[in-house]
């Protein structure tokens, strides 16, 4: 072949029509369809469907808006979600920051992460039982405190009401906060503290102008996620209160679908539909804030 002759370009590898990798992710898609998309779309459809005739109706939504029992359930769910989200976020953040940046021994971080991984998933009946054994009127800790002359029930505390349930929720809320805020705390670079000090800033000014604004999207995003976590919780409240003492949205849905109260299936779907909307807003909010945080922390 002469110098002037061009060599044949190497043939491009044929593009595979179908990657085998799709096979690996199929179980996820099947699972998501069966247990997320299908039930969600069923909720949406049945919310606008007459339970008897199957025709389109807004009756369920109207009933929901007019029913003080349901509105009270939403209100209570939102209140407990806000309280435990804020409590979990503040406590969880301080705990994570202390373990990661507080100059504590390294094992503190790994111990906290292991505990948080377990505790954030410890909910439902076992958690309710643990707290009943500990803080019910005849619970172990209650009795110990009684023995030293301090009966918490004399001071208005009840495990089975708002603050009691909030305390129980906090058990899985703050570990979840620890887990999800850790990457943001890790992302705070030592040079930012030094650069701000070098420019004359005090520690307070560093936090006010640099660290807090950088962490804010992550903090808000994580708080929103905690809100969603509490808002969707059912088994813990049901097991702790028996479904009667605390009228949460999730308990109302269960009651309506089981037919325990009025047995209004359509209303149950409408309440669930409301929850789907709240959770969707939560997820979008989290995702937007997380993206903003990542942009700054990358």
């Amino acid at each position, binding site marked *: 072949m002469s110098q002037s002759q061009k060599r044949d370009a190497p043939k491009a590898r044929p593009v595979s029509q179908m990657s085998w990798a799709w096979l690996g992710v199929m179980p996820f898609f099947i699972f998501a369809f069966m247990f997320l998309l299908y039930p969600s779309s069923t909720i949406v459809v049945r919310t606008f469907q007459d339970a008897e005739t199957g025709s389109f109706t807004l009756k369920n939504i109207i009933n929901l808006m007019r029913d003080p029992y349901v509105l009270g359930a939403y209100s209570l769910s939102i209140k407990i979600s806000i309280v435990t989200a804020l409590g979990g976020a503040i406590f969880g953040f301080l705990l994570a920051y202390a373990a990661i940046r507080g100059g504590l021994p390294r094992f503190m971080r790994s111990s906290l992460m292991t505990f948080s991984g377990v505790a954030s998933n410890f909910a439902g009946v076992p958690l309710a039982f643990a707290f009943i054994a500990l803080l019910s009127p005849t619970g172990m800790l209650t009795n110990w405190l009684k023995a030293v002359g301090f009966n918490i029930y004399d001071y208005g505390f009840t495990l089975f009401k708002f603050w009691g349930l909030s305390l129980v929720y906090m058990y899985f809320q703050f570990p979840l906060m620890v887990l999800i805020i850790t990457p943001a705390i890790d992302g705070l670079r030592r040079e930012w503290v030094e650069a701000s*000090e070098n420019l004359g800033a005090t520690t307070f000014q560093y936090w006010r102008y640099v660290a807090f604004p950088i962490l804010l999207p992550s903090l808000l995003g994580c708080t929103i996620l905690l809100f969603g976590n509490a808002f969707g919780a059912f088994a813990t409240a049901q097991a702790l209160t028996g479904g009667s003492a605390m009228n949460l949205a999730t308990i109302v849905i269960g009651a309506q679908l089981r037919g325990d109260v009025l047995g209004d299936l359509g209303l149950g779907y409408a309440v669930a539909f409301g929850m789907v909307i709240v959770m969707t807003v939560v997820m979008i909010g989290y995702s937007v804030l997380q993206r903003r945080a990542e942009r700054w922390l990358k």
Partner: protein
Amino acid sequence: MKHLILKNISKEYGGTTVVRDFNLEIEQGEFVSFLGPSGCGKTTTLRMVAGFEMPTTGTITMNGAEITNNPPNQRNVGMIFQAYALFPNMTVAQNIGFGLKIRKETESAIKERVDEMLALISLQKHANKYPYQLSGGQQQRVALARALANRPQVLLLDEPLSALDAKIRVSLRSEIRAIQKKMGITAIFVTHDQEEALSISDRIVVMYEGRIEQVGTPFQVYNFPETNFVANFVGTLNSAEAEVVDSAQGLLNMDGIQFKTSQEEMKGRSTGDKIRMSIRPERLSFAAELKKDNVLDCVIENITFLGSVVRIQVKIGNARFNMDTFNNPFLELPKIGDKSQVTCSQEAVLVYSGEATA
């Protein structure tokens, strides 16, 4: 009066000494580089000037006032970090104006100074961008402007170019030097890149294992290295073990091959001393062109084209030496395996005690 004085500075971490007996005086407006390998203590020394580390012993004086124990936010020194350290939640203008805002300067004064700094670094069009929207070189220029906006007494640069690609590095170092000269600010530049240090410094402090090995101008450090480490670390060096055979005459013996060195290099040496003999590659040339004090038989072992320079490896006795010659299109290169002769002046033969350290 010297602008910055570091006197008897040492730093220990848990019993390990990382900086020892460091003494240096820097003039107002001088550009001094700390040069050395990783772990030599150059960044630690810089951080002690910034106030991020406290010296175990010694004092730091700036403009006649001792600042050894002052916290970093009360030193009025500007610092540029290797990884830029721009605040990601602030725009370019906000980053530059941050220090002025902390000083509670008026909005108009901040704006005026920020505009001045933006013009200095030619980034006026990027004032409202966030750091993540800028290239590495642009970010480091913003960091420079931010550090200068507060009118610091000393500018500290901690390997500011090492995260940048080669071309940007060269252009930005010239820019940093030009700005430093224009503003007349005293600067300390930490680097492990000898070319960087040689190209922009008024003086270089070569450090090794926490100690100062040599302080001098780039010319002095390169041409008259005071220690074996400096000779090896700064520039490329041919080095071989030899013996002084006649200290009065400056004669050395390397495996039966005789070299002549200058009387200057023989100071403090005696006949029979085991020494390390070093020659810079550019001080060797083919003897056919011009014979100097040392004319040595050699065999061509390898030829490497380095762009502006051609590096020829020759074997003299059992030792391999590199010889650098400027490239030109008419250069007639020998062939590998050819026998030839190389030459160098007696001043080119440097003599050190002990083993090579770099």
